């Protein structure tokens, strides 16, 4: 089955389908993707794939009832079946009092996010980059693992109120894990760009390999509270959990969010400012959401004070506000959360942060962060891929991994320094632009043997 990829074909497909809808109001969301992934481990490519798909999500209103279905059968018959499914579902629903209705949204700003070099990146190109990384690792006795992924994303929204939005973008991601033994040296590095030409594969590999070499023969240290320097990825991992726990309009409106009833209160130190910013020129986000609402930049924490959360039309109505343009696809129950988080930089270099530390830890990133106490934004997870002891302003050597249980806002409240350099860090379909951070009193509960 051929899948349309260009704006004119996709909008025509949605227009034609809308014209046949049996609903009083109808919204159609087109989500297309093409993923090409070269995955490597043990110095060989062990998984290599390319796959594409496109689906349409139907949200149809009949007698005030709002029903949802989706299909990847984009023939007329397939789309009509999806609408018929939705119509059948609507018959069993009660009128939806919380449904705000579809509206005609202004056309979102056009962002430059599509790069042919990324869309056309071949498996041979990816294999060449991986081979260079593997070769560099071997010279240091290091094995390399990782993934090099390139692809496209295409999103279009059309509704019966007149909204028409279209976005096509590319994305490229490289991550490298380097190790010579699971118990010995381990390192990791990553990069994400819209334009694959901006990914310096050898440099990313070199950072991971160097860290693996430096983290050989780690020593055990006891659990306890330490001052830490979190590299940007570690900051990003904590930030994403705040996205779920504090910045989501759904949990906020339900009274279960960390920010529920707390807007205007001081929640971190004054040196913390966090925005949801889909319009960073270096990595533009999708400029509208899955309801076709143009995205807004949202101030989430300003100088330590809780300022806002992100909304879709439903959670905005629940909370008495307006949508910020952060709806997820209608078949997703999670509710809106930010996908382009930025933490404003400070002034410190990594060298200055290390030099200022009497005793503490340098952390590359975490593994398996998960909820521990959501009402406190507390999570649990272990350090990974290079944890180093710092004493008297210098890196003394590697230490074994530890389990951390930070309450994220409390940890951010103890941020002593924030890095001046920021990097893009992708996780779970969110893109974060984050600096390193030095935090006092970071809790570790599980010591290493």
């Amino acid at each position, binding site marked *: 089955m051929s899948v349309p990829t260009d704006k004119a074909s996709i909008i025509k497909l949605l227009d034609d389908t809308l014209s046949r809808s049996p609903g009083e109001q109808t919204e159609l969301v087109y989500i297309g993707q093409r993923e090409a992934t070269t995955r490597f481990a043990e110095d060989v490519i062990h998984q*290599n*794939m390319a796959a594409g798909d496109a689906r349409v999500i139907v949200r149809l209103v009949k007698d005030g009832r709002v029903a949802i279905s989706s299909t990847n059968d984009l023939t007329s018959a397939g789309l009509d079946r999806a609408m018929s499914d939705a119509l*059948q579902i609507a018959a069993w629903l009660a009128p939806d009092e919380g449904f705000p209705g579809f509206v005609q949204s202004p056309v979102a700003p056009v962002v430059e996010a599509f790069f042919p070099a990324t869309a056309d990146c071949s498996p041979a190109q990816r294999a060449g980059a991986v081979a260079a990384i*593997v070769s560099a690792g071997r010279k240091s006795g290091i*094995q390399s693992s990782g993934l090099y992924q390139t692809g496209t994303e295409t999103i279009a929204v059309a509704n019966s109120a007149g909204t028409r939005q279209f976005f096509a973008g590319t994305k490229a991601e490289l991550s490298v894990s380097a190790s010579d033994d699971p118990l010995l040296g381990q390192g990791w590095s990553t990069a994400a760009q819209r334009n694959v030409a901006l990914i310096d594969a050898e440099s990313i590999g070199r950072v991971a390999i160097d860290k693996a070499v430096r983290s050989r023969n780690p020593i055990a240290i006891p659990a306890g509270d330490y001052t830490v320097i979190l590299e940007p990825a570690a900051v990003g991992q904590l930030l994403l959990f705040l996205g779920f726990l504090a910045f989501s309009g759904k949990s906020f409106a339900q009274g279960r969010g960390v920010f529920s*009833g707390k807007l205007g209160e001081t929640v971190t130190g004054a040196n913390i400012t966090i925005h949801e910013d889909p319009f960073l020129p270096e990595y533009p986000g999708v400029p509208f959401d899955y309801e076709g609402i143009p995205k807004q930049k949202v101030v989430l924490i300003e100088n330590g004070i809780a300022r806002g959360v992100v909304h879709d039309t439903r959670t905005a109505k629940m909370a008495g506000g307006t949508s910020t343009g952060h709806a997820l696809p209608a078949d997703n129950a999670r509710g809106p959360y930010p996908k382009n988080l930025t933490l404003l930089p400070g002034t410190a270099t990594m060298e200055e942060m290390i030099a200022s530390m009497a005793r503490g830890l340098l952390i590359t990133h975490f593994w398996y962060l998960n909820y*521990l106490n959501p009402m406190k934004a507390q999570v*649990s997870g272990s350090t990974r891929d290079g944890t180093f002891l710092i004493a008297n302003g210098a890196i003394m050597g590697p230490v074994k991994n530890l389990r951390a249980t930070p309450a994220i806002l409390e940890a951010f409240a103890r941020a002593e320094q924030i890095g001046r350099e920021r990097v893009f860090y992708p996780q779970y379909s969110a893109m974060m632009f984050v600096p390193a951070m030095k935090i006092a009193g970071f809790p570790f509960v599980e010591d290493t043997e």
Partner: protein
Amino acid sequence: MPDLKDIEQAGQLVASVRKSQASYADFRAVRITTEDVALADGQVDRIDRKVSFGFGVRALVDGAWGFAAAPGCDETSARTVLEEAIAIAHASALLMKEPVTLAPVKAVQADYKTLVITDPFAVELKEKVEFLRHLDSLLRETEGINQTETFLSFRREEKWFYSSAGAVITQTITHSGGGLSAAAMKSRREIGERSFPTSGGQHQTGGYEIITALNLEAGCKPTAEEAVTLLSAPVLPERTTTLLLSGDLVSLQIHESIGHPLELDRVFGSERNFSGTSFAAPGHLGTLPYAADFVTVTSDPSAPGGLGTYGYDDEGVPAAPVVLIKDGVLVDYLSSRETAARLNRQSSGAMRAESWFDLPLVRMTNINLTPGSGSLDSLIADTEDGVLIATPAAWSIDDRREKFQLGGEIAWEIKNGQRGQIYKNPVYSGTTVEFWRSCDRICGPEAYTIWGTPSCGKGQPGQNMRTGQGASPARFRNVKVGQAA
């Protein structure tokens, strides 16, 4: 319904790939249909139906793999996708050490279907919504409950598998699941929450009869009452004690600290960059005392009712039980044809993909802890001093699957064989082997259930797999529980 003739032609085209092009190829067309019905606070939160259909082709060329996939299915697109998979395999071959070899499997022609008594997709939505509204009203009979969720979830996977070795396998696998939760909230800063039968609901292979058997009505009152009690309960204080786990928490413990560490692709390092490696290296096979000497764990995709139950895996390997831990000792892994061949073993039939879009990976099937004897009540009665923790709420384990911290929704102090004080936010921690060796009793078949995990993440790109873990409540000695004040 997909056009079966198109699928057959496409499958045969891939299966007849020329040896000069690929030494092996397989074709897997999949149609997945899902229906989710959920109420929040008594109102319909979502009812949605999804259909996804497409196919994927794996090709082994010069000892290296390529995979490509596309939506829909016909002979023309199969030719294109096969050629793309072959081209990708050529690129993979640029970076290889040893050519991939595959453990042998007998090519079969077979048709497998889940036993379904009542087709869940044929049950009227009205009945489903009214049932959930009824559950909601039962939850709200308890004073203090101000947030509720009730839900049902159904999934049907139809698969057509063809291989160049001659396999032609069709399967229809049906899953049904449901559950509920109740929360008591106070001043937007405190919450007590419980779920039933477990967090995220219970999901199994079968039809609507699964929902009936869950007996969700009976769970409403205790669930709601415990949620209210938790609102004012203290946090479980830190100490080292005897730990009793509910069956669904034992299921989570099996999943995290037995299932994942024994995935042989992970053991070899394939997941190094994402979900990590495993402490359970091949050198431990047959020698590592993984658990107490009465503990036996199997992988059994043939077990009726589990969420990891099927007829054949996504390489055409027939479902059959495999002992992973025998009398406490590690004796086998979850494997694919490729990973098993590296140890000169047979595949355990654990190669599975989330959908047609995805490349199969080594995945948990039903990882079952052989039951012992007695009920949970008898286990409690047999415990002088300890803590019972129930229902998964928090989980995290390091990337070698050794050190973990897991938590439950609720805990009870156990004193002199009786339940006492209730605690909220209970957690416990330990090290995989040390923890399983500390197991001193497992409850019996009367307390045994294959718990379903409907979304286990693994792989890059990430895939969500549906797995099962057979478990009864169990007891462990000298475990660190609770959090420091």
